[in-house]
């Protein structure tokens, strides 16, 4: 285990896991990189060639001011520019559910990158199910805190849904990690995982 491991990197357990999945001295593209904290951390601790894409202007600004090469753009367009197989990893953390065409994005990720790392909140978590069952409304939980009308999430998916897609697309999953808070869960991930992280390739 490299010393780069941190239990909860920058307050986000998906970052901590992702940072463990990335090999040092590689080329990494983070889609929806926010203020670039994960990339800056990877550049410093794993010496990766770090690039990002961020649609929010102020966040992209902060990332560039931090020294990370970030492209201020939506990620659908950002991927289209890039040649095939230019990155070792393409990261999509907590953003898949916000994309207009998730499948297109995932396929593009595997065109541009040798491997894809995707982290998403699991809509199959029992709290979500209960929230829906008992309130009869669109579920609101810690991971899905929004009202239906102000949610950035437009495509809800579960661990189970993602596994089905992987199978249908004939992708190869190298690692799958399920998180409940900062802890990993191995049993009944579709019910117990709050966040799922997949490392996969074509």
């Amino acid at each position, binding site marked *: 285990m490299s010393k780069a491991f941190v239990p909860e990197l920058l307050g986000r357990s998906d970052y901590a896991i992702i940072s463990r999945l990335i090999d040092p001295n590689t080329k990494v593209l983070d889609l929806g990189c926010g203020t670039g904290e994960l990339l800056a951390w990877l550049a410093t601790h794993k010496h990766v060639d770090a690039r990002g894409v961020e649609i929010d202007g102020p966040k992209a600004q902060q990332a560039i001011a931090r020294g990370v*090469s*970030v492209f201020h*753009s939506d990620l659908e367009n950002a991927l289209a*520019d890039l040649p095939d197989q230019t990155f070792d990893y393409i990261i999509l953390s907590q953003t898949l559910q916000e994309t207009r065409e998730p499948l297109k994005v995932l396929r593009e990720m595997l065109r541009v990158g040798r491997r894809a790392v995707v982290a998403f909140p699991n809509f199959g978590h029992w709290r979500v199910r209960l929230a829906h069952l008992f309130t009869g409304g669109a579920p609101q939980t810690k991971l899905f805190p929004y009202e239906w009308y102000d949610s950035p999430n437009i495509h809800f998916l579960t661990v189970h849904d993602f596994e089905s897609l992987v199978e249908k697309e004939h992708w190869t999953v190298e690692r799958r990690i399920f998180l409940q808070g900062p802890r990993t869960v191995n049993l009944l991930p579709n019910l117990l995982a709050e966040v799922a992280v997949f490392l996969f390739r074509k």
Partner: protein
Amino acid sequence: MITETQIAQFDSIQLDGGMTLAPVDVAYETYGELNEAKTNAILVLHAFSGDAHAAGIDKESGNIGWWDNMIGPGKGFDTDKYFVICTNCLSGCRGSSGPSSINPETGCPYAMSFPPVTIRDMVRLQKKLIDHLGIKKLLSVSGGSMGAMQAMQWAVSYPDAVASAIPIAGTSRHSPQQIAFNEVGRQAIMADPDWNEGNYYGHRPPARGLAVARMVGHITYMSDASMREKFGRRLRDQNQFEVESYLRYRGSQFVDRFDANSYLYITKAMDYFDLTSEVNTLSEAFENVKSRFLVISFTSDWLYPSYQSLEVVRALRSRNCDVAYCELPSTYGHDAFLVTVADQAELVRGFLASTIRERT
């Protein structure tokens, strides 16, 4: 910071048009200290009407440099860390060789016999100066508008001599709209009888034509919002709006510091600038580029709209170049890179620091 413009003279320069200019002068200023290894030099490139006086207070005139808010101790281009160089462009009128310079063969100003000059020629002259200063590789080249064109040309022409480029509010080639505005300016000058086919030196210069050209220019540098904010419909007096008075003032002021023939030459150089002129695509133009890029555009800039910066960014990304891009919010139009510099300075500061980190 008191500054003084210096002049370097070189034997000759070979121009894109096939002609040779001999000798050739380049006016320049420097700020900060060049380190021993000569690795901390940054070349800043002025826009159409700028000059070598980018920062500080000019010893003679007392004028403040055109990018003084970006260059100085602790500023975006931090002169405590970096050695900043600025030159007046070739065919300009502020110390570098241009149509108002004396032709040694005739003893008279060149006027319209000055050879046509391209953006690449301007960069070629700057390269001579950088070589002369003993600098092998610039840490960065940066400028807005025409300065952005030169920054890109630097990265293309001398890939090994620039570690990074920061083109701001620029384009890889003028749109018909940009050419059209320049042509209105040129026609205003040439329609002035005092222009006299360019032979007005020692006589009355085409001040009315040049002032009108500048007025058109100023309109394109602002935005609808910034003009509403600045002038509204306020009246200066019974006969003129505030905005009219402002434009007339800027026009007449410009006549005192700018040569009409330089206006013609420089705008032509900008209009003919096209990174794709010798290749099929912009991506191909960047084939040999090695430098990192920070590209900046502004939301209200309708003269050099963001899509033009994005074209550059996309082409660089298609070559897998290291490029950062941000569209900054501003209501100041094209002038934003000169006026609202706080965000811009933050980006530049972080980008330069990471360029140094990457090099080591």
